[in-house]
């Protein structure tokens, strides 16, 4: 009995040991669509509407709405910013009460429990940023079946589990922007590594898949050393970045794929004294990056405006609840942001990614 147990344990350790944690094996098996190497973002794809629909939704046109926003986690700058955008839009519309609630860790189980509780409480609309696109689908479908409007932003769920998804920027546009900026800083044959949240978080997984395709197409000589997970945790991101710096002598650039990983990566580079020798390019909020950009450690920060993202999501929710945004629409009016285009069937595009540099970062405060 003891021997059999030991045998099983040893065999499973061998199996696990063969797994290559270093290579990029994540992703969501969806096709990639790399952009052309020169020129800006290409034209947006158009597809028939593939979102879900609420069952027996009550007529909400013109009535007061209660909307709950459940992001991946609360307590980080990025989602504080989206929450602010949602609150701003709610105040501007005047007919919506919006609340942000969510888990304190980016954990899909807890997020599902939060959503389920709000379904029981009875809300009119749910805004979400998913920790896992498939795991969140059953509870969102339950919300739809109770007549609740469901709109996602930042990180999508399976299309039939929600009505619309507000995408901050096209996945291939972000990939192109990140890689082009990195290539400008470290050269066409530099070596880089990536710090991400988890290999299965929907938005990060898509971006990295697109980056992989774009790098093969337009920067084939750049060396992709490693991709590591850091769960949107500050300390873990810092440790992972420091490990990367110590492990790879030829590391010239670090990509931070979450708004937590990029400042942590910049701090790791700064503390190991490699400012200027190792480039840090990534997605982050301007406030977190101001010290590093002003010091010259980080040259460019790619993002969109998360406050605008939350703002747009709330306007889309109001339009969906009112019935003014129907399947098959090609654009939607989002308050001060103007007309936003519909792409990929049920995605609403916020706009092209924005690059923060030393010159303009001082103008932003989030």
């Amino acid at each position, binding site marked *: 009995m003891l021997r059999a147990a030991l045998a099983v344990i040893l065999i499973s*350790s061998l199996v696990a040991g063969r797994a290559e944690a270093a290579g990029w094996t994540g992703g969501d098996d969806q096709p990639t669509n790399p952009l052309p190497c020169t020129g800006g973002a290409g034209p947006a794809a158009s597809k028939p509407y593939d979102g879900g629909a609420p069952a027996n939704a009550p007529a909400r046109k013109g009535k007061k709405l209660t909307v709950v926003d459940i992001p991946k986690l609360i307590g980080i700058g990025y989602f504080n910013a989206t929450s602010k955008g949602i609150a701003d839009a709610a105040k501007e519309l005047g007919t919506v009460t919006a609340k942000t609630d969510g888990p304190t860790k980016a954990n899909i189980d807890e997020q599902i429990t939060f959503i389920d*509780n709000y379904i029981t409480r009875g809300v009119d609309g749910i805004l979400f940023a998913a920790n896992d696109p498939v795991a969140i689908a059953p509870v969102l479908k339950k919300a739809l079946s109770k007549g609740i409007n469901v709109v996602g932003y930042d990180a999508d769920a399976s299309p039939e589990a929600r009505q619309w998804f507000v995408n901050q920027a096209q996945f291939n546009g972000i990939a192109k922007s990140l890689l082009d900026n990195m290539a400008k800083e470290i050269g066409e044959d530099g070596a880089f590594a990536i710090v991400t949240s988890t290999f299965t978080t929907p938005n990060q997984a898509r971006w990295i898949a697109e980056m992989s395709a774009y790098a093969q197409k337009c920067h084939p000589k750049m060396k992709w050393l490693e991709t590591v997970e850091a*769960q949107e945790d500050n300390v873990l991101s810092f440790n992972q970045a420091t490990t990367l710096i110590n492990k790879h002598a030829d590391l010239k650039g670090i990509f931070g794929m979450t708004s937590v990983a990029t400042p942590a990566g910049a701090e790791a580079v700064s503390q190991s004294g490699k400012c200027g020798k190792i480039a840090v390019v990534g997605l982050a909020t301007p406030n977190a990056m101001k010290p590093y950009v002003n010091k010259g450690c980080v040259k460019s920060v790619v993002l969109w405006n998360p406050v605008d993202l939350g703002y747009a999501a709330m306007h889309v929710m109001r339009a969906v609840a009112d019935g003014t945004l129907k399947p098959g629409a090609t654009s939607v009016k989002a308050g001060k942001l103007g007309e936003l285009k519909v792409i990929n069937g049920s995605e609403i595009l916020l706009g092209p990614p924005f690059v923060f540099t030393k010159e303009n970062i001082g103008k932003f405060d989030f």
Partner: protein
Amino acid sequence: MRLDARTLLRHETVLAALVVVTFVVLANQSDRFFTAANLLNQGRFMAEVGLVALTMTFVIVTGGIDLSVGSILGFAAILVGVLWKKAGLPLPVAMGLAVGAAGVAGLTNGLIITRFKVPPLIATLATLALFRGLAEGISESRSVRGYPEWFYTLGQGEAAGVPVQVWVLAGAALVAAFVLERTTFGRATYVTGASETAARFSGVAVDRTKLLVYTASGLAAGLAAVILVSRVSTTRSDMGTGLELDVITAVVLGGTSIFGGKGTIAGTLLGLVLIQALRNGLALAGVKGDGTIVVIGAVLILTILVSNLFGRGGDG
């Protein structure tokens, strides 16, 4: 059971009264709380923690602890996906193997604790990291999706209007209560926790009892893993993180002494119900996530205080 002051002031009775009071208060705060649909739904969410809490009661009664249940759950969850998708085994076989592997994991815990005399806290702390690492390595960080429809009835389906996993939990609770209170194995568990030396000298098979108890803990985590995968329709290597804290809270709240020798299944179930009711009821009443955690912590401390103040009621 005589109805005297000592019985009335048993921890379990105090807890039962607290549960009733909580239900009344929460039902007042929100009219959605005390509905059949909501209560049954909460039963669904409770099943995974509940199954593991049942076996954790045995573990803590022996004076030990098992911190690795969350990692074993993650490990078993990944195995279900990997064995089915990658190795191509039929899904029922994959499920059975995953639960079996979880049992082996529990057995490993038991062996480290009995053969190598490592304190349970340290041994299971180490295996917590070991099994989580195995789960991440085997999964290669991909999640497995796309299970056949019948698989989802376990976690998302109903039988006679009651969620399937609630039936499973109820059946397991009955079995666990019977084993703990009516069999010699159950008595052996109590005496091992009360005084291990006395147990050994009385001829009780202490090591075998511990091995069985930790293996059962692993098996329960494996079964909970299968139910969880069925409920969220995907497997992820970070499943079950933090489960051990929820489980131990429920067990300790239920009156099981952390030093061993005292505890009942009924108490564990009451503790489970209380925590789930608080989590759900407070959320429905409009309290945000962080507030709920504070309340649960306060309830835990208060319950233990009250129970200690009113004397050591009941001896299991």
